């Protein structure tokens, strides 16, 4: 059984989401079970049209391609439920219907036993 990796995005700047996406996709390439979590502070990156605003940052991979890889291959991509009210977000604005909106406890139960946890 492969090991678990947790990647948390906790900020609304490019330097929060880009390394998070890069680490998650690298983890997938190394056969980790990846669990990705959007905190309220990083909520906007789970919304339609936000990653697109980044374009392809100089010298970095394209964030949309990274996200599409992650949403397709990660064990779970979770959006913290608290982010809905905190940021005034409508669930239908999520960029992908496979993003799971839930509270932190079930996410932590899924992520239990993770050997790597990265917060950006």
């Amino acid at each position, binding site marked *: 059984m492969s090991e678990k990796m947790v990647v948390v995005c906790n900020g609304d700047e490019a*330097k929060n989401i880009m*390394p998070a996406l890069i680490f998650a996709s*690298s983890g997938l390439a*190394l056969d980790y079970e990846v669990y990705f979590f959007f905190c309220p502070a990083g909520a906007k990156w789970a919304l339609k049209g936000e990653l697109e605003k980044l374009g392809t940052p100089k010298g970095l*991979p394209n964030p949309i391609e990274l996200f599409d890889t992650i949403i397709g291959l990660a064990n779970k991509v979770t959006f913290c439920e608290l982010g809905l009210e905190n940021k005034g977000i409508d669930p239908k604005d999520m960029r992908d219907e496979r993003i799971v909106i839930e509270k932190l406890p079930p996410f932590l139960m899924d992520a239990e036993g993770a050997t*790597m946890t*990265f917060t*950006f």
Partner: protein
Amino acid sequence: MSDEFDSNEEYEFVESKMVVMVNHSDHDSVMAAIVMAAAGAATGEQVLMFFQPGAAKVLVKGELEKYQNIQGLPDPIKLYESITILDGRIILCELGLPNKGIKEEDLRDEVEVMMASSFLLEAEGANAVYCY
């Protein structure tokens, strides 16, 4: 008796790994990261510091010196030296070079440059990961 010390038995010393990620170049983030890494190295951890593009410029020669003389905080150069003397590794994400327009020859001498996926292999088995 089985619970007595057996001087012939071989014991393997297993060093535990500690990962310190740095993703921001503000004073609070950099100093917190380097203090934590130095503390880990001093307590026998094998320290791996990984600098993301957001903190890449910290590893350019002459940049860490700008974090000196912050009230109440230790000298970052001494901390950095103690980390490397104690076999800690200072690693820069390869993407930080083109993203920030940094040339490899401008980095501090001890810095290794590595892809994120290679770093993850190096970090395998880490007991603690701290992100700043």
